[in-house]
């Protein structure tokens, strides 16, 4: 007897191997993956705030907390070249690639300490790249009150004249952050 079966599961026969897992595309609407500074907040002022459920923290609050408690880990979500050029002083780099599944970064994200405040930031106006990382940290079991996104990101931090580091900065700027 002949039977007819569905092969629909097999629609799509290409796979990428990453060190951690085959990847899945994140939610749409992310900004470009890397490169120079992303559009200013003025250019996208009418945009809806992405991931509104992700708690934000202001640059002032972070800067104050670093001074008083020192229990903050800052995470720059740009690619390594952009990070190397300019980042918040003391920040570590874990790249968020909007074209890839955020879970690809899980092994690295899980290495972040669970007993400190972890603040993700991006070089984008509305935390488009840092907010998904915050959500992923929740999925990995981190306490919701221990992981936040920096409101206004690197741009806001820079506007306030807080300490920066990176190869693209004039020496005087870097020294200001010492």
């Amino acid at each position, binding site marked *: 007897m002949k039977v007819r079966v569905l092969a629909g599961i097999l629609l799509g026969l290409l796979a*990428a191997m990453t060190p951690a897992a085959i990847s899945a595309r994140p939610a749409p609407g992310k900004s470009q993956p890397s490169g120079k500074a992303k559009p200013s907040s003025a250019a996208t002022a009418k945009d809806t705030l992405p991931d509104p459920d992700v708690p934000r923290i202001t640059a002032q609050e972070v800067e104050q907390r670093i001074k008083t408690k020192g229990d903050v880990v800052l995470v720059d979500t740009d690619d390594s070249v952009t990070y190397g050029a300019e980042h918040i002083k003391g920040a570590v780099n874990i790249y968020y690639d909007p074209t890839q599944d955020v879970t690809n970064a899980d092994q690295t994200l899980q290495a972040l300490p669970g007993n400190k405040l972890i603040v993700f930031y991006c070089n984008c106006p509305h935390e488009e790249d840092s907010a998904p990382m915050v959500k992923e940290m929740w999925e990995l079991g981190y306490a919701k009150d221990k992981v936040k996104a920096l409101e206004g990101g690197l741009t806001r931090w820079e506007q306030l004249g807080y300490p920066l580091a990176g190869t693209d900065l004039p020496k005087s700027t870097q020294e200001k952050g010492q």
Partner: protein
Amino acid sequence: MNNIVHYALTYVRKYDTGMPLRFVAVPFPFTGQPKEVDVGYVTGKDMLTDQPMMHAVVDALTKPLTPEEKITGAPAEESVEPRLLPPDTEDNLRALFDERGWADYNWINLPTEKKVMAMLRGTSHKPDEVIKTINITGGARPLTVEKVAISAVMAGASPEHFPVILALATQAPFGNSTSSMANMVVINGPIAKKLKFNSGTNAMGPYNRSNAVVGRAFTILSKTAGDLRNGINAWESLGSNFQYNNILYAENEDALPEGWNPLHVQMGYKPSDSVVTVGTGWTSISSVGGSQELYPVHHLMRDYMSALTASGSSATIVMDPTVAGLLQTAHGFKTKEQLSEWFSQNAQKTAGNYWGNGVIQSVVVPLALQGLEPYASWRKLPNDAMIKPFTNPRAIHIVVTGGKIQTTWFVTDFGMRRGVKIDDWA
């Protein structure tokens, strides 16, 4: 040709860039080799052109682009399978599924339209609903409810299992690495009893239909949706036998000591929620024989933990209810969280053991070099210095299962993601 070189020449060229990239190739692996071996690779010949390696590198960087190398635009997409295969005999179709690598090489239930439609009646979700989009190198491909139903049929599941499998599908495909990555799946909540998942004697053994078919469905789903094919894009050197069933079991919630919450409740769900939790890891070490009064059971677990990578502080300790009871009454752990905290404070390994692991090297070293503590300080320690690598107690999970026959347990390095609510997929 070496598989990884083949991958670079075909997949990366065809699907990542749309144009040929220039490669030179050394034998694999190169990590962990004596320095002379790696030096030999550089001073030796390129595997592709047979030229001296550095000549090949210079050529690849300096020779003018060929017309083919100047192609721009999106890569061409691979042709896809038709939704329906032509009619054939059952034996021929099963042979075809094996030949194409679409199953796990155990006997499959052929996914006829009738059977798939029956499976789809196990959920209120529409067949064309996209659960997630698998972003494979050739482009983004949607994983629909219907595709999951096909896998569920192939695995031998019934429609009542389907919501569990759909919840699992949100976590698909399973891990694919060069080392032996695997998954652990834990079922919690009322669904465990309703569908008779095993959380008693032989909870982790081949003695229960629900455990068997749902665990297998995750395998088939991962292989097909993720298009994992041995030697082409799946190349775990040793592979993992865990990938046949993904260590699927239910937590024995009825046997939890007072004060010990089920896994899903620890994750913020209500006890009345049905939840499936998926973990990813590599290592599982079993206790042998019963626990002894001479040496407290949690001390032995702690000792075994020194063999785990401690990547991301991840560990999942699976224990029989008798062990959980012992830990609560004899050793004073009133909650799972207290026990996790104790492990975090007491599990140790040498710095050499920690840094000698490949995953730690690739994941943690970059953070250490950027100054993140405690890793930056650990990097400066001698190999024999002791460290406490499980810094995050929230990443140490405790799951209670089993038949109260013997005081046995497993120490594993599985890192658990937040569980997925099954009720949302009913």
